[in-house]
């Protein structure tokens, strides 16, 4: 493994800062991603000190991570929307239509047809909701791509019209509860993998990381592309594995609360004394992980993703280069509808039903997550993991401020300041780098 093709460029006066920068560059790490992770760590450490360590307990880390999932899932798609120089303001309303579809099916329609809590009912609801999400996305995508109406206008229309549709579907009232199997999608102790399965998932993820790094290195060498120095590969493998193991460890350190243990014991006619279950990785986190990997793959390894970034970089050149830009744009919006439907399932499961206001204001949260994560409104630039981290940073802040009991209006002030500072710092450091 001596053929490291890329060496750190020589510098006249390599200070510590420059060496760190080189390190990041040589290892081909995303500086902004590292910055976001650092921000997250700073937030947690800061609040950890403030609360005497309480806020770093597993249940707190799991709670905000689970709360962030709804926004994070949609944000992965919003990156592609913004990269292609478009916008989607309708996400909250599309989410609400899908969530209300799930809840109405399970609460209103199933009792008189197939029955509640059937093994397949919730899957059928999910399929129907996802179908509706994709159709709503396709309608908007068609109007944007083929009728040439600006995406701002079309999706603003979607924001209003689909919210109105929610009231029609619900008849104006809250629909609750969902099927019991469906509620598992919302996470919490009952919606988690459990201890053993969580370790299995961790092992699988580490295997995937190692396999991917090896495969990538071989492929690059085969085509004569530069590869990372071996030490960097090893460092990334170790870092990735540690993150996975840490995540599983934290998830398993959260145990079922007493109330659930007692319910379980009562249901099984056993004594609750001595009963103890590890909660494990919450299902919403598993879903988010799958979505993040899938959309990242789509964005960076498939033709579709290349086209999206090409269109964002220069729409005319992309069109002249033979890319079917219209179909590509329409597909982005279909994907958005799909992601909203997935997110809707988690949102509905988390409140065990659906209210007419579900997803209100999500468009700004989702766009914020994408932009904080490094997506540029100028188009062409943005990463999916960045957007996911952006969502997690927002919710970490919000949750920790709620935890210490700050009034909601002052929470908004703090969050706004931190987010603007984060983006300002990033812009500043980029300017220095060039």
């Amino acid at each position, binding site marked *: 493994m001596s053929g490291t093709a890329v060496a750190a460029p020589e510098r006249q006066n390599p200070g510590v800062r420059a060496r760190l920068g080189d390190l990041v560059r040589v290892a081909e790490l995303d500086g902004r991603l590292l910055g976001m992770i650092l921000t997250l760590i700073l937030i947690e450490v800061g609040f950890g000190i403030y609360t005497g360590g309480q806020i770093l307990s597993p249940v707190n880390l799991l709670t905000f991570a689970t709360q962030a999932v709804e926004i994070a899932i949609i944000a992965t798609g919003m990156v592609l929307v913004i990269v292609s120089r478009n916008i989607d303001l309708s996400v909250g309303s599309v989410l609400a239509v899908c969530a209300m579809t799930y809840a109405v099916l399970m609460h209103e329609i199933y009792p008189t047809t197939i029955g509640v809590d059937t093994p397949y009912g919730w899957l059928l609801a999910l399929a129907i909701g996802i179908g509706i999400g994709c159709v709503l996305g396709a309608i908007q995508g068609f109007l944007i791509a083929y009728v040439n109406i600006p995406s701002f206008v079309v999706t603003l229309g979607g924001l209003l019209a689909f919210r109105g549709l929610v009231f029609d579907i619900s008849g104006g009232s809250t629909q609750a509860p969902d099927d019991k199997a469906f509620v598992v999608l919302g996470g919490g102790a009952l919606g988690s993998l459990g201890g053993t399965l969580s370790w299995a998932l961790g092992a699988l993820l580490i295997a995937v990381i190692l396999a991917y790094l090896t495969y990538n290195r071989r492929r690059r060498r085969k085509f004569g592309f530069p590869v990372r120095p071996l030490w960097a590969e090893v460092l990334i493998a170790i870092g990735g594995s540690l993150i996975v193991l840490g995540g599983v460890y934290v998830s398993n350190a959260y145990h079922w*609360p007493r109330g659930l243990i007692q319910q379980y014991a009562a249901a099984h006619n056993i004594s609750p004394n001595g009963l103890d279950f590890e909660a494990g990785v919450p299902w919403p986190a598993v879903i988010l992980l799958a979505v993040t990997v899938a959309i990242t793959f789509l964005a960076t390894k498939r033709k579709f993703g290349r086209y999206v970034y090409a269109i964002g970089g220069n729409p005319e050149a992309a069109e002249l280069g033979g890319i079917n830009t219209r179909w590509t744009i329409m597909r982005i919006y279909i994907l958005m509808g799909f992601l909203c439907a997935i997110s809707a399932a988690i949102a509905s499961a988390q409140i065990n039903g659906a209210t007419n206001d579900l997803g209100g204001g999500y468009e700004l949260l989702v766009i914020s997550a994408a932009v904080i994560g490094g997506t540029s409104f100028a188009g062409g630039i943005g990463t999916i993991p960045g957007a996911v981290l952006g969502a997690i940073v927002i919710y970490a802040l919000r949750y920790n401020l709620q935890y210490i009991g700050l009034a909601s209006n002052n929470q908004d002030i703090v969050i706004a300041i931190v987010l603007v500072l984060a983006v300002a710092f990033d812009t500043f450091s980029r300017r220095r780098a060039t």
Partner: protein
Amino acid sequence: MRQRLAMVAAVAALVLSACSGNGATQAPGNTSAATAGATAAASGGTAGGCLIGVSWNNYDQERWKKADEPAIKAAIAAGGGTYTSTDAHDSSDQQNKDITTLINKGVKVIILLAKDATAVTPAVQQAEAAGIQIIGYDRLIEDPKALYITFDNQKVGTIMAQVLLGVQPQGNYAVIKGDPGDPNAAFLRAGMDLGGLKDAVTSGKVKIVGEQNTPNWDTTGAKNEMQAILNANNNKVDAVLSENDGMATGVSAALQAVGLTIPLSGQDGDAAALNRVALGTQTVSVWKNAFALGETAGNAAIQLCAGTALTAVKAPSDLPAASKPADLNTHLFTTPGNNQVSSFILTPTPIQQANLGDVISAGWVTKDQVCTGVAAGKVAACG
């Protein structure tokens, strides 16, 4: 929820309004029977003695068509009057135009569900100049010559605190409040203190371990707040005062996720919340009987039409006992704009497991809606 969206839209105007309230029933038999086939805009015929116009703000909200309008119509018909109406589609501008339309139609009394307490003033003055009497319905209008008919919103908070303290006199309380910009949220909270919460805290029986406003009365937001409060207190929370049923939906989900079933309040009489009351996962949903409100307004309109002086108007004597105002006379109410307005202030009704049957028999919700998932023999109303 519709009513919460309406709240947000009207935040600036709603000072002592009842917009969060879903209609409630317990209607006297004579009103509920006369409701079938109600339509949105009855044409303004002149049959009968008196033409009475209703200016709706947002008729598309389920409550008006379901409870308020039939009750108003029935009361007007009983008094020999004729009903006509307009809908402003949530626009102050349109509402001003609507009132002009009603004036031109020749109405004698206008029952006004105002979009905005002050923006509607030009049309109100125009109407009064034409000798028309205005009834401010459900929501306040800043006009000393109007009759104001609404529910006691502060009392809603009082009832919540009384009911919860009744079943859980001591322990850790969480308070999930509504939108920080909505005066109603603060009124409800003040009402809770009057209902004994403040005394219980002072005496040390109750400790408030978490209190948070919820922007836009958002369900998911309420759930997230409740999760933070539960985690911060190691799940040691004994009761939750939620200011409405939508937020109670989120709170209830957060409680269930950690296996807690504790006293929980709400308001609006949402079907989902009444179902939780039947299931035992919510203690009370405080309800504003919109049938009673409508009957009072329609009846007052007839009296005003017959020339009764504003201060001599009486509330109907056959209102459901739970909703009746303190007495049948009008009382002066001081508005935030420092106007003295004659008013009927009706009483909200707490709905708990024991009186769930009233809701079903009145036709506000069906037995199926309330009793889904309830084991036989557990709740009287569900059989």
